[in-house]
């Protein structure tokens, strides 16, 4: 299997591969997000308890899931980069961290906008919101560490190690926060319960999860390509490509 993967470890090849994948991801994201959002916002029935405010779920749940999934994928890439010394994996870590951070931010904002009508407060120390907040701190740590190094090879490896340490901590943080939350029940009134959603409500959610996943992938690939060129800027193939692109208008 590694033999089959190996040719893709060449920078030109992985740049081209990312370039072929990018339009697929982008179109899938555009299609799925528009279908899922319109369906969810306009056509799905309203929740019998929460009324129309539940429609925030079509944004909140995908972004929360993908913020966790994005961190996991970043840590897996970091592990691959550390074990097999594949430089592109470190570039992927650097490329995906800001995207994951934005998704985490969206999960927090939508959680707050949901919490205000439901709980009467913009912020409650609910277990899920608290662990999202800590996840945002972890993301910001990876981004901050990456930006602090001027040597980007070192930066990528350091950020990779930090994201592996973070991903080992993530389940511990998650369960400890949940446990802490059950101890201090007074703060929370209800959770983001979604017991047995109706299928007419569930379909747009699933479509949106796919859509935002594709968006995460597309933006990460795009940033990965930028990151790769930044590191390879002295190589002839990069120079040739840039000259061709810039003379033809970027």
């Amino acid at each position, binding site marked *: 299997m590694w033999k089959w993967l190996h040719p893709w470890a060449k920078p030109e090849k992985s740049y081209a591969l990312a370039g072929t994948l990018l339009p697929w991801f982008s179109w899938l994201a555009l299609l799925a997000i528009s279908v899922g959002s319109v369906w969810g916002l306009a056509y799905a029935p309203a929740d019998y308890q929460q009324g129309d405010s539940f429609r925030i779920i079509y944004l909140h749940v995908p972004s929360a899931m993908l913020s966790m999934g994005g961190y996991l994928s970043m840590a897996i890439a970091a592990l691959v980069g550390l074990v097999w010394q594949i430089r592109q994996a470190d570039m992927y870590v650097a490329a995906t961290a800001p995207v994951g951070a934005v998704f985490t931010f969206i999960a927090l904002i939508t959680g707050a906008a949901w919490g205000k009508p439901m709980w009467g407060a913009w912020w409650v120390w609910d277990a899920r919101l608290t662990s999202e907040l800590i996840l945002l701190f972890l993301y910001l740590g990876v981004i901050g*560490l990456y930006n602090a190094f001027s040597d980007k090879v*070192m930066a990528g490896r*350091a950020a990779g190690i*930090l994201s*592996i*340490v973070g991903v080992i901590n993530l389940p511990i943080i998650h369960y400890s926060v949940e*446990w802490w939350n059950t101890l201090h029940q007074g703060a929370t009134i209800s959770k983001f319960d979604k017991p047995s959603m109706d299928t007419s409500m569930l379909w747009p959610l699933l479509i949106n999860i796919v859509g935002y996943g594709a968006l995460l992938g597309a933006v990460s690939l795009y940033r990965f390509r930028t990151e790769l060129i930044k590191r390879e800027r002295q190589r002839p193939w990069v120079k040739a490509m840039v000259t061709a692109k810039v003379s033809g208008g970027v």
Partner: protein
Amino acid sequence: MRNSLVFRAIVRRELISAMRRNAEVINPLWFVLIVVTLFPIALGPEPQLLAKVAPGVFWVTAILSCLLSLERLFRDDFSDGSLEQMLMSSHSLVGIALAKVFAHWLLTGIPLLLISPLVAVLLSMEWQVYKACFLTLAIGTPVLSLIGAVGVALTVGLRKGGVLLSLLVLPLYIPILIFATSAIESAAFSLPYDGPLAIMAAILALCASLCPFAISAALRVSLN
């Protein structure tokens, strides 16, 4: 040289160099006492209120003082090049890292435990609460040193790593803080608290087995 000898040699060396600059050991403790003094002044001196916030105050202060002393864990050795010598030597970097963390704990964790009765008196803790506080600190401070060392190893090559270090490390301290304070809280209601203590011990075991590898990997990156 056998690994245990290297371990002992490094711990001895750290202790001796800390004795020569004893301000670095004393200042974090002093910091703990000053911060603990600020809370009664800010919140008011009612013993009930203080007893309620005491575990949280003590633990947050302990974490902050640990952060203060963390930076010198690798910085001096990094700047005078002895860290590079250790990397070049035939001994495993993992063992060296563990020895340095152990020395750091001896120089920060143990003194904190020694002044904890004083803090308990200042925050009007009861005996059973203090006992729980002592136990959680005894188990928790090595974890603080271990996780902190990973952060230091990652940032030691940076010129302005200080603030970044605390941003990296503080979120990782949250689980241990949660279990420690809830153990103390259970003790305050005279409930059994061996559950959270056992989880803390498990976290300590996990950190002690994984962190040295992360530290050595991070040091290799920083020294490049």
